[in-house]
């Protein structure tokens, strides 16, 4: 077998990079809220980019390892521990059979990712292993993990190394203390009063308690339209910032509906979705306006860094393999 869930934690789900191609039937994409933390985690283990991991939210689970496995924990620092000892993040760590992985106080961010080398033995549904809980689709039985769930590994760890002396340069991951989220103008930005447009780009917004994987509700001054009108529903996506008639913005997140009818005042730049995903209830954020070209340039720069990182990690594994061969 693989792992057994001893305690579920606040919201613990299986996520990969998402379920694409079915949004036209209303099927949510889902996937990791912080897809960059998942990508980096998979890279650290030499996994495929899209390998599914366990997404933990604020209060992490307690997991019993029935078998030895190489894992890494990335994303938020939710104080991971193995048998009570603090577990370093952003590096491969070997968890021995019989060990307990647990979490403590959330130190920074909201969502941590537990990645397993070779992945978990979970069937793909409609092309993905991501959990879409509201639709009871995918992941582990279409729902968050519960006490008693037992999930097998797809591969057992065959390496001889038990200690890895390297870890990822943490500067490759966004600084989670940043509260500024970069956005582009939304298609309906001009429909808002000029005062609303101004305050959107200058005010501080608080993420409300009614926030989840589907969307973050923000509280602020009321954002008013120049004239109240009903819009026709159209596609919306991760990071679309909608404003319902009560004037409080909602940012759509990974489990977002595929379409919506409220005016979209802005769209979060893809580069900052991971940062936003690490924010939670009562966190305060503000929005900085950037252009489409700037957003694309930021993504390209990040992708170049990411490719470099993957090459460097591949080299690390080749080296350890070489040493093993020598011995």
């Amino acid at each position: 077998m693989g792992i057994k869930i001893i305690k579920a934690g606040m919201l613990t789900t299986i996520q990969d990079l998402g379920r694409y191609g079915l949004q036209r039937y209303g099927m949510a994409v889902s996937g990791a809220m912080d897809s960059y933390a998942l990508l980096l985690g998979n890279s650290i283990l030499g996994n495929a980019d899209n390998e599914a991991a366990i997404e933990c939210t604020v209060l992490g689970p307690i997991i019993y390892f029935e078998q030895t496995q190489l894992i890494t924990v990335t994303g938020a620092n939710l104080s991971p521990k193995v048998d009570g000892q603090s577990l370093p993040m952003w590096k491969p760590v070997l968890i021995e059979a019989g060990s307990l992985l647990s979490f403590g106080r959330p130190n920074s961010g909201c969502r941590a990712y537990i990645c397993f080398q070779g992945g978990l033995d979970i069937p793909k549904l409609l092309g993905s292993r991501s959990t879409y809980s509201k639709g009871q689709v995918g992941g582990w039985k279409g729902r968050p993990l519960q006490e008693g769930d037992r999930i097998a590994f797809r591969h057992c760890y065959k390496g001889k190394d038990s200690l890895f002396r390297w870890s990822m340069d943490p500067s490759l991951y966004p600084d989670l203390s940043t509260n500024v989220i970069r956005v582009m103008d939304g298609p309906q930005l001009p429909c808002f009063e000029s005062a609303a447009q101004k305050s959107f780009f200058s005010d501080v917004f608080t993420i409300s308690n009614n926030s989840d994987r589907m969307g973050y509700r923000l509280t602020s001054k009321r954002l008013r339209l120049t004239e109240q009108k009903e819009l026709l529903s159209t596609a919306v996506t991760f990071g679309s910032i909608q404003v319902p008639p009560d004037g409080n913005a909602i940012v759509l997140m990974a489990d977002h509906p595929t379409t919506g009818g409220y005016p979209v005042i802005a769209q979060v730049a893809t580069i900052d979705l991971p940062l936003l995903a690490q924010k939670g209830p009562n966190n305060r954020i503000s929005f900085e306006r950037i252009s489409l070209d700037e957003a694309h340039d930021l993504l390209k720069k990040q992708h170049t860094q990411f490719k470099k990182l993957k090459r460097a990690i591949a080299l690390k594994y080749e080296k350890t393999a070489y040493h093993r061969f020598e011995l």
Partner: protein
Amino acid sequence: MGSSHEQSLSIALPNPIRYFPMGDQALVLSFGDTISEMVNVRVRQVATHIDNWSQPGVIEYVPAYTTITIYYDPLKITYQELLSVLQMIVQDIPEDTEYIGKKKEIPVYYNGADLAYVAQYNGLTEEEVIRLHSTPEYRVYMIGFVPGFPYLGGMDSRIATPRKEVPRLKIEAGAVGIAGEQTGVYPIETPGGWQIIGHTPLQLFDLSKESPSLLEMGDCVRFVPITYDEFVLLKTESYGH
């Protein structure tokens, strides 16, 4: 469920198309700003062409009432490149295709929490709201929001009611609602801002079925009022327990 007569109609010239970005991974084609059979047929036509199109960097597309949103990977194709390819394709799509839709019936027990509000807002009785809602034949203009949710065109404007100011945190599966001039059915439990007027016992999205969505873009739908007893009976049948 329901009979499956077919209905066809021909279409006329489309509106000029607008192209604009929605964030850094989506390009929107807009065929107009009002619900119309003609515009929606054009959306379906262009969508069919995109279906048969394999452009590297294009992830997927989502057709709606008057728009098609195309999701792309900006590391593989630039906005400008995608825009010019699309403009060329759309130009070449013939406009004289006819469209065929299936007829389907949806039984509804009209007991929604907002039925009284919809009646009061429009100066009608609840019975009149039910009659006006169950009379027309609706067109499925799009599927979206959540799995299998049909957006229907053709609602009588006498029962049009704005969305709720604050969306409800929980609307149960099968709820039938009104939002502005639109009506639709919630296939799964979800938050939502529509005014709820009734419930259908049918399961609109069923993963165990080969085609999980009961309705498809282009279908012709009629709502049939049923009693509470019929509702319970049909719900037992369609959910299989």
